[in-house]
C-alpha cells in the first residue's frame, strides 16, 4: 500500500537553523495520528512542510507519493486558535462555504450557489452543527467554532485533515466530544487525520500512531511504542516517567510541560 506521508531523515527549521532533525516516519492512508510535543517544539512546522508552505532544510518528504505543494486540494488545514473578532459577524454557513469556493474567481450564483449551500449544510449536519448554520461565528462558543472550522475543512472533500491544536481551550467533556466527531467522520469518509495536541489522553482511544517531537528529535510509532518511560526519556534526554491511573489515563512526568503544572 502506498504511504500517505513518508519522511526520511527530514530536518526542519527557519533560517537554516534546525528546530528538529533526522525525522523518519511514515503514515498510512486512513490513519489517525496524534502529533505531540511542547510549545515551540516544531509541530506546526511539520504542518507547514506538508502544506508546502515551508521547504525542508534537508531530507525528503513525500505526501500522496509526491513532493508537498501549495494549494493541494487533497489536504485541508485547520490552523491554531483563529481569532474570531466579536465585531466580525459572519454566518457559519457562509464561512463553511469558503471551504469549497474560497479560492475561485468571481461570484457563484444559480445552480452552483444552490449546490454549494447544499454541500455546506450536509457537512454541518455531519459535524452535529446543523443548528448553528445561520448563527454568527463570533457568537459561538469555542467548541462550536471548532465544529464549524471542521466543517469548512471537510466541505472540500479532502483526503488528509491537518488539525492544529483543535482541543486548546476546550473543557474535558468538549475535548472528548470533538475527538469522537473527528474520529467518526475520519472512519466513515476514509480520511487520514493528523492532530496536534498537548495532552495525549483525549486522543488515546482513537489514535493509530503518535509522532512525538521534543528536544529537536522526532519519534513515531504506536502509542504503546512511544509513550513509555524509555522512549520519552531518550527523546527528552532526561528521566521521564509515564504513569497510568486506574482509568487508563496517562500522565507524563518530568517534561517541561509537566513541570509548568506544578
Amino acid at each position, binding site marked *: 500500500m502506498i504511504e500517505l506521508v513518508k519522511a526520511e531523515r527530514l530536518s526542519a527549521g527557519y533560517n537554516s537553523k534546525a528546530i528538529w532533525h533526522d525525522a523518519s516516519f511514515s503514515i498510512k492512508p486512513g490513519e489517525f495520528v496524534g502529533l505531540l510535543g511542547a510549545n515551540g517544539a516544531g509541530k506546526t512546522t511539520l504542518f507547514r512542510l506538508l502544506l508546502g*508552505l515551508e521547504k525542508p532544510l534537508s531530507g525528503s518528504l513525500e505526501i500522496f507519493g509526491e513532493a508537498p505543494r501549495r494549494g493541494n486540494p487533497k489536504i485541508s488545514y485547520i490552523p491554531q486558535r483563529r481569532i474570531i473578532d466579536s465585531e466580525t459577524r*459572519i454566518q457559519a454557513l457562509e464561512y463553511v462555504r469558503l471551504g469549497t469556493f474560497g479560492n*475561485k474567481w468571481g461570484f457563484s450564483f444559480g445552480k452552483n450557489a444552490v449546490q454549494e449551500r447544499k454541500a455546506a449544510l450536509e457537512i454541518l449536519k455531519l459535524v452535529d452543527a446543523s443548528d448553528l448554520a*445561520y448563527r454568527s461565528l463570533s457568537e459561538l462558543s469555542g467548541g462550536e467554532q471548532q465544529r464549524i472550522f471542521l466543517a469548512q475543512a471537510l466541505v472540500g472533500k479532502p483526503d488528509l485533515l491537518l488539525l492544529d491544536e483543535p482541543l486548546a481551550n476546550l473543557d474535558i467533556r468538549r475535548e472528548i466530544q470533538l475527538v469522537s466527531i473527528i474520529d467518526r467522520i475520519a472512519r466513515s469518509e476514509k480520511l487520514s487525520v493528523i492532530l496536534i495536541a498537548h495532552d495525549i489522553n483525549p486522543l488515546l482511544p482513537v489514535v493509530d500512531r503518535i509522532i512525538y517531537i521534543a528536544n529537536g528529535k522526532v519519534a513515531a510509532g504506536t502509542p504503546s511504542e512511544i509513550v513509555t518511560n524509555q522512549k520519552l526519556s531518550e527523546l527528552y534526554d532526561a528521566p521521564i516517567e509515564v504513569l497510568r491511573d486506574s482509568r487508563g489515563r496517562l500522565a507524563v512526568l518530568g517534561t517541561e510541560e509537566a513541570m509548568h503544572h506544578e
Partner: protein
Amino acid sequence: MNRLGLLSSSFSLNLWSDLHSMWQYAFMQHAFEAGSIVAIVAGMVGYFVVIRRLSFAAHALSHAGFAGAAGAVLMNLNPLFGLLIFTGGGGLAMAALGKKAASRDVQIGNVLAFMLGLGVLFISLYKGYATEAYSLLFGEILGISSGNVTLTWIAALVIICAVALLYRRLLFTSLDEDVAEARGISMLGMNIIFMLLISLAVSIAVQVVGVLLIFALLVTPASIAQRLTKHPLQGIGLSITVALVATWIGLFTSYYVPYPVSFFIVSVVFIAYLIVRLVQFLQHTGKAQPASD
C-alpha cells in the same frame, strides 16, 4: 438662504420638484453623479476594509493622499493625480510589509503625521487660495469638475470589476488568512491588490468627504452593515445603501442649508450608527432580562 445666495428655489415638500430644481444646475448634477459613484464604491470596498480590520490603514492612506494632492496643487496639476500616486504608493508599501504591518497603529500613525505635515508645507508654499487646502481636508463635492467626474467613473469601474472578479478570494483571505494561504492563494498578491483598491477608493472619496472625514464613507456604512447582517453579499449591499443614502441626504440638505456637504454626510452615517447601536443594545438588554429573573 441657499449656499450660493443665487439660487432661486426654496425647499418644498414635493421631493421630486426639489430634485428637479437642483438638477438644473450643472454643479449639482455633477455632485449627485460623482457622489453616488463614490458612495457605491466606498460602501463596497469599505465592507472589506472593516472585515480585514484595516480602517486605520485606510485612514492613513487618505492622509498620505493629502500630501500628494497638496503637492499636485503646488505643481498646478490635478489634485486627483497626486492623491492616486501617494495613496497608491502608501498602499503598496503597506502591502509589501505584510498584513501585520497594516495593523501596526503606532508606526502607521508616525507616517500619517509626517504626511499631513508635508501636506501643510505644500499648501503653505502654494500661493493660491486657502480653499484648496480646505476642500482637500473636508471635501468639496459641489465644486467637482466634469473631468473629475469622468475620472471618478473610470476609477469606480476598475474597482467594481476587480471586486466582482476577486470577491470570493477577498472574502476568504479577509476571514481566514492561514487557510486561504494553505489553499494556494498568494497573500502578498491579494494584499497588494486590496491595498491598491483602497487607495483608488480613498482617492475618489476624498473629493466628497475630504481626507479627514474618509471614515464617513469608507468605514461607518460598512460597520453599520456588519452589525445588521451576517451575510457578506447582504452586508456589501447594505453598506452601499447606507453610503448612498447619506450622500444623497447630504447633497440635498446642503442645497438649502449653507453648511458643508461632508458635515451632513458624516452626521447622517453617525446618527445611523448610533441608532443601530442603541437598538441593538436595547434588544440585548431586553433579551437578557427574562434570563436574570
